[in-house]
């Protein structure tokens, strides 16, 4: 059971990460490797925050 829940968690964070990464690419004007790296990191942080927020509202 626990494995399934972590799988769901990973899928959720990955989905948020992809969407927010795409949003970062839209925001950015010039795209170079460093920009992509920073964007990936920031999208990761925001994805984790999104999941944390959903779970906080849903009440664990």
């Amino acid at each position, binding site marked *: 059971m626990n494995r399934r829940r972590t799988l769901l968690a990973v899928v959720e964070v990955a989905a948020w990460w992809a969407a927010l990464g795409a*949003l970062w*690419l*839209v*925001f*950015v*004007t010039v795209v170079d490797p460093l920009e992509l790296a920073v964007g990936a990191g920031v999208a990761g942080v925001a994805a984790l925050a999104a999941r944390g927020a959903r779970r906080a509202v849903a009440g664990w």
Partner: protein
Amino acid sequence: MNGWILAATAVLGAGVGATVWGVATGPLRRRVVAQNLSTALACPALLLLAQGYDRPAYVDLALVLALLGPVGTLVFARLLAGELAGDPPRARALTRSAAGLGAGVVLALCVAVGPSRALLKLLVVGVLLVGGNLLASRALSGGMAGARRG
């Protein structure tokens, strides 16, 4: 004579000017709606100015306003839920027209900008703006009923 700046002047003078008058006078429920409309109209004005001055960097300002404007209205809806419960604000037509104006401005700018990443950015700002303001007016008119003391 730059048409975009002229349009921005019109939106600012007529639209935002009316919201300033609306927020300074009248009952609380009309002031809260006027505050919501002020961000709903200032954001397209900023977009028009960004196009008029030919500075794509100014779109970031409109982006932050499109994000935080409705959040500011949510603050008022949440913390004034008590006072507003008596006569909830009903401004469906005004909010719809402001949202329509915002959408129209964004579409016009998209046509002017042409297919590129900047177009996507404008669309993102447009979606955030229209969605945010419609939702904020929904929150004002009763979305926060259960949040009187929390």
